[in-house]
């Protein structure tokens, strides 16, 4: 197990370098960001050159990359155009997005898996059909439609919530946005669990467990659910990264100043330190979440062993 973890951690290094370099290239390929700093006015060459030098934009891209990576290992993620260190931006944005992700994840796990198990056990009945239709509807409606509609009714018409989340991003303010963010994934979790449960319920070990006279609850939770969760956990693991980064739409609607917002600003203003810095951290989160998922496999199914 220990060796497996170390091997996986070492494998992360090339993935990490490759991913960051690609991002670096992509931001670079968008063109020279300095011109946009001057608005509709043509920049004067001397000031533009001074700004390019300040952000290392005058050097070839590989050299920028090396310089950038060199600094990252000392904890210096560069400076955003508004003069603020990117590390400060991250220090503010990541906790908020992490909270939002947690809220979303809790919704997904609790509601998604519960619904999945219930429908899986009652396949073909009316409850199953209605949940299936409901998940289909949720998947089909774009997040921004659901988000703005709910925001309008809950925030303006009923006045139950504030339409915009404050800069601190308190957890109670994040419940509705978290739910919106969770909805699409929640529908997938439900469907995955349902299929998996429906498949496993006919397995031999379930028949054995029932034949042994085990209580129904124990059969469902210990035998059925545990074995059915592997695909769900895989999905949830991959989803953590998506929730962190993919919250751009939700964060915009509810004015949450998290990762999605900072990434969006960074891309719009072509600020490579911001974009690359955030993506670097997101890549790390993604990799670690996947490692966690792989390790969970062994817990869920002892037949899976890591040497």
């Amino acid at each position: 197990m220990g060796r497996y973890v170390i091997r996986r951690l070492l494998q992360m290094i090339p993935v990490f370098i490759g991913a960051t370099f690609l991002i670096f290239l992509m931001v670079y390929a968008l063109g020279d960001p300095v011109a946009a700093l001057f608005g509709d006015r043509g920049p004067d060459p001397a000031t533009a050159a001074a700004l390019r030098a300040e952000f290392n934009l005058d050097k070839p891209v590989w050299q920028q990359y090396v310089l950038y990576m060199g600094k990252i290992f000392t904890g210096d993620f560069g400076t955003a155009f508004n003069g603020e260190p990117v590390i400060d931006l991250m220090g503010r944005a990541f906790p908020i997005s992490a909270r939002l992700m947690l809220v979303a994840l809790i919704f997904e796990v609790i509601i998604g898996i519960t619904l999945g198990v219930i429908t899986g056990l009652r396949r073909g009945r009316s409850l199953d059909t209605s949940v299936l239709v409901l998940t289909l509807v949720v998947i089909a409606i774009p997040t921004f439609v659901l988000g703005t509609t709910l925001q309008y009714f809950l925030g303006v018409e009923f006045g139950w919530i504030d339409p915009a989340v404050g800069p601190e991003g308190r957890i109670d303010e994040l419940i509705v946005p978290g739910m919106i963010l969770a909805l699409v994934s929640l529908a997938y979790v439900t469907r995955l669990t349902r299929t998996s449960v429906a498949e496993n319920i006919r397995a031999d070990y379930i028949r054995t467990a029932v034949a042994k006279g085990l209580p129904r609850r124990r059969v469902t939770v210990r035998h059925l659910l545990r074995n059915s969760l592997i695909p769900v956990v895989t999905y949830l693991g991959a989803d953590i990264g998506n929730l962190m980064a993919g919250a751009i739409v939700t964060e915009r609607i509810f004015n949450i100043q998290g990762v999605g917002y900072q990434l969006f600003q960074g891309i719009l203003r072509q600020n490579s330190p911001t974009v690359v810095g955030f993506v670097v951290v997101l890549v790390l989160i993604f990799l670690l979440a996947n490692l966690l998922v792989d390790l969970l496999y062994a817990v869920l199914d002892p037949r899976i062993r890591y040497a």
Partner: protein
Amino acid sequence: MPGSIRLRSVLVGATAVALVATGCGGGDSGGDGGGSGVIRASWGDPQHPLEPANTNEVQGGKVLDMIFRGLKRYNPETGEAEDMMAESIETEDQRNFTVTIKDGWQFQDGTPVTADSYVDAWNYGAHLDNAQVASYFFQFIEGYDEVHPEEEGAEATADTLSGLEVTGEHTFEVRLSEPFALWPETLGYAAYAPLPQAFFEDHDAWLAKPVGNGPYQIDSYQRSQRMNLVRYDDYSGPDDARNDGVELRVYTDNNTAYTDLQAGNLDLIDDVPASQLKNARSDLGDRYINQPAGIIQTVSFPLYDDAWSGDDGVKLRQGLSMAINREEITQRIFQDTRTPASDFTSPVLGDAGGFQEGLCGEVCEYHPDRAKELIDEAGGLPGGRVTLSSNVDTGSHRQWLDAVCNSVNNALESENACTVNPVPTFADFRNQISNREMTGMFRTGWQMDYPLIQNFLQPLYYTDASSNDGGYSSEEFDALVDEANSADNEDDSVSLFQDAEQVLVDDLPAIPLWYQNGTAGYSERLRDVRLNPFSVPVFTDITVG
């Protein structure tokens, strides 16, 4: 949110029930500033650190306008430059100016505002090493070439502007590199603000919490999140704040700000989202403001390209201009938040300032038949077709680009005469323009720096001027601008600029499209809300309650 009106009427009953049930309206549930005399206003993250000479966009400018007062200030109503900190600005030759500032003003850290505060700030703003994006404001002052050489890679050969000299605690002399009659009128711009010693001593600390000499002072500032400003009680100017302060909240999307305004969590938005323009009147009634701003949108041509130069080029441009149905586009797409343009300036200048409605004549009107004739006379469009380029990442550019091209295609009775060339980002678009890579029409918007006719003409159309994106060059135009700048008084100067503008109408280096309005909406808590010519709310005048 399309369709929200209908949904709303269906839900009126349900809402009433819900309101009774929850025992509260959609009102003041969360705002920490609510209840007191503090205005809660929407804000956007400034693009640059907040310092006077490094700010060239509206969001940063909004704050500078609250915490700083310079020598002049533009009247929020008329746009006229009026003395603020200036006691007098005197000149005999339109080139050497003696500036005397008022006594008794102080910065919010208690230090007095002196002539040094101005001269040091201007020297800082002009110097190349400080890489200030608005340093070009100091280009008229003698010695700018030495502290800020234009060429890439060049280094400054002087530390201070030779044209600036402090002659007393409250007086200083300014020598310009050439005569500029309207120069004192430019001094209302934020880049010319004075700076306290603290700015130079601990720059980072100052940036974290800027200190100025204006009617508001910054109480707390969390970058990219919010800023709390309170009334500065020892303010020496005549325009004291009539409220307790302003809380600026950063909104990532102005749709959310609009929703927050509707929910009663916000008092003021100064940019109504395009998608809500249709509903704003019915949602807000009198609390919706739609008034002219100092912004003009034009379409420029690559005059450096042979296909667009010469006499045929003029006919082509005139023809294309007449093929655009400005009335219809401003009504349908912009919900009357744009006004068809008929000159090269802006209505905010007023007649005295040089605005001349209808100057452009029939060239800027919709005459599809004449358009086709003119273009045929010129031998048709170069290569039989033309592209219209613009960035499409912000604003609702894509919509009007399509509309303009459709209008041209209809006039020319050809489906592919005009096609839109969308450029993904603003930076990319500006790069293509700077590198002179344009082959067809392209969008050129201009937001004035100061409400002067000079600002709408010289930076845009003078030979090799900083924003002369089309590469236009006319000896006649240049000569008239020079003459206007050295005129003895402002009236003559304005009238000479209008003569220069007439040259533009004849040559048509760019097609005026429309003047842009500022839009705003506010809550029932506020009174006396209006926008200045820069479409920024006049915060000091607003009363709460």
